[in-house]
């Protein structure tokens, strides 16, 4: 499980970096199709998305003004900073889970068709 999450997280980091947010549902759907036989894969992909975006946010946070930025953006959107962070990770998780879940179904249907 850890290996899957780690690998998928790494792929999601790269996908987000190069393709933006669209990379998350895209990669998640592909992983869902490829690993459709694995039980609970959609949840693992969602977890991987949270890990991937957390890593990217940590990279941003290393700049030193991350707290000020989080505070300013959160107050602009009239949210607590923690809630904004949670919304960010939840957004990634939901996109990843839903795309992976559909990928799993597509994978299963196509496998059944192949049999």
């Amino acid at each position: 499980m850890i290996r899957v999450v780690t690998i998928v997280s790494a792929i999601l980091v790269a996908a987000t970096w190069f393709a933006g947010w669209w990379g998350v549902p895209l990669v998640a759907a592909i992983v869902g199709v490829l690993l459709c036989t694995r039980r609970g894969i959609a949840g693992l992909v969602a977890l991987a998305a949270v890990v991937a975006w957390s890593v990217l946010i940590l990279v941003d946070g290393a700049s030193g003004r991350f707290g000020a930025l989080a505070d300013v953006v959160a107050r602009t959107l009239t949210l607590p900073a923690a809630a904004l962070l949670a919304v960010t990770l939840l957004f990634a998780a939901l996109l990843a889970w839903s795309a992976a879940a559909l990928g799993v179904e597509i994978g299963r249907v196509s496998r059944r068709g192949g049999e």
Partner: protein
Amino acid sequence: MIGRTLRVIVAVLVLFGGLFVGARAIAPAPALGPFLEPAHGVWSLARSTAMPARADGSVPGLRDSVQVVYDDRAVPHVFARSEEDAYRALGFVVARDRLFQLFVQTLAASGRLTEIGGAQTLPLDREMRQLGLPRAAERAVARAGETSAMSRVARAYADGINAYIRSMPASALPLEFRLLGITPPEWKPIDSYYLQNRMGWTLANIANERDRAVAAARVGRNAAVALFPDDSPIQEPIQPNGQHAPRLDFHRLPPAGAPDSASMLVAAAADAFAPSQQLAQREPGEPATRSLASNNWAVSPARSASGHALLAGDPHLDLTLPSIWYETHLVVPGALDIYGVTIPGLPPVVIGFNRDMAWTFTNTGADVMDVYVEQVDDMRHPTRYRVDGAWRPLERRVEVYRGRHGETIAADTMYYTHRGPLQLVRGRWVSLRWTVLESGSEAAGFLAGSHARTAREFEDAMAASYRAPAQNMLAADRGGHIAIRSTGRFPIRPGTGTGSVLFDGASSASDWKGDAPVADWPQGFDPAQGYLTSANQQPIDPRAAHIWFGGSWDPWRALRINELLRADSAVTVDAMRRFQTDPGSARADLFVPYFLRAAQRVAARGTGANPAVLEEAARVLAQWDRRYTKTNTGAVLFEAALRETAVETWDELNPHADGRRLFPSSAVLLELMSDSASAWWDDRNTPAVEDRDAILASSLVSAFLATRRSYGAPGGSGWEWGKIRHANINHLLFIPALSALGLPVQGGPGTLSPSSGNGTQGASWRMVVELGPTLRAWATYPGGQSGNPASARYRDRLPQWLAGTLEAVHVPMRPSDLAASQRSATLVLRPVR
């Protein structure tokens, strides 16, 4: 099976929901995908909140490499080998720090805010376009030609901005662009001209003439002229008049007469071309635009402690975050060495100094806007207008307002006579002539002025090119000379010379006869008194002038700074700094005795309604030191009393069916004080006939009771000025989280650092320069160099500004003059090979 189907349905809904909110903005939230995504979205902005210690860039058009050294105040010192390269680099660094400001100011100035704000911002855009400001910018560009200095500098500056936009990493896209879901467009040289015109719109449109016309419609023309006079009843002009004290030119105010209904057309016509913001700002005793003013003064070597000339300037403008100003230093060895502030989008340094001299401005408030009633061939669809019996074609221009996606939101057909834009007002077509619409060479004046070696050279360079908005230009040099001149176009009109009437557009005799020559402009060079001051007061004694040069502001700041300078024969740099936020008030000094004497007289007469309260209120007011410090507990009572007095006194003018409140200036109220039995004192709402003392006493009682009700016991902490009067510095998009609101400040109405109304205007830049063998300068402004709200430089200067302190500025001649400890970053810009 059912569970699986349900899971698929939920997954589809979540996915499509996520994709929808990810890709599409649902106001006020931006599209969440690009906004939240951490690699390039809003979180990545953290990576660009500080300039890296060393960075490189390339700019097309650069002839040589340019080194930009940021000092410990985040001021970029640009070292270039040609002036055009310096302005290219300036464009780059301004864009790096203030990209959104560049963008939104340009949209506002060109009447294109609908492109981000939709139909909601249409009235603001209409205001710009109906005044003809974008058209005037296009014409100014055409007049400037391809080869003029300003054209070349504007192109170079645009090159720099666009080079930054193209090279900017996705992570550096400013927060505001992300919130709006847009990207910055290419910058065009004409954008600088739009901004220049916007400054004209801000500063060259004065309310006094409109107020006078409205007053005439309520109380007759004679009374209106007295209540809203051109000439200030208190004279201490900018051009020294040989007096050693202010002169009180008080006259008996004529009583209210029969309404002059024809004046409403004058007012309506003036309103049609007035800034909506100006019409909205009304406060009893503080007519509109009173805070949008400035101070400057200079001291000759004979009156300075160091024996060097000193200069101070603090322009009072709308306070915004980021600030209207951006501080910079441009060095081109042997050609240019200029330090000061620019307006992001306008390449020249507007206020500042070079190695030899320094300069700063205040607004004259001259009447440079006239309205003409035109005869047209067709009231509904005019194509021609008549002048001297002959028909002339109207210029027609369709103004199209676009939405965010290029869709048409509205379209207006505009018409122009040879005078300017035409508008339908109360069933008549009226056209506007305005110096701002015929200007455009101002930036060229700044560029020429930046090379001046002496105060005189600076004044003459500006006189040659600068037209609008007319400014009181103060300069001082290392040779010990000080100079001031009200510079700009001052139209000469037919007839009585006043612009406060509607002119007959059907006659060319109504047109301007030319402009006042430079020799007639208010000015002073090395005066015997040893100092020069301007605080928007009337620039020249009306006894010495044949036309009106402006100055409809109250004279209180002018009186105060003259008083301070007269009393100090050895002025220091620190005194100059202290004067900028001096809490003393000439206004309070003059009014308070009237209140105290009125309280005594009314008490003696035994006619007051509430003698115990009157006695206590008078005691509190008498104990007040007449200063507006943050902890002062007396100012609030005086302000309330004066406001109440204005409301009770000017009841003949208010309220009115049209809802427009009208208050003569507090200088006119002081003039009225000299006539204790004037009919203006009587409150028409009471059966008794009140005189001055009755009104002052009752106002003081009302003010005391209201203040006690609102703020608690007299003298308590609730009465502290700093808890009542605040500066409110709004973000350009009025986002509270990005603004600095409710800031306690020292100063009140009429003090040198004025704080009035809603606190959104004030000293936008404070500078003191000592012109010794080596020039030294100190400065600050409310905000910071960076436009990035998460940057440590976004509002880092606010504490100094609030405390009235200044920072010593670094003025290196070469990069190596800045010690390592004084540097924060270095940027090297290279030509594109």
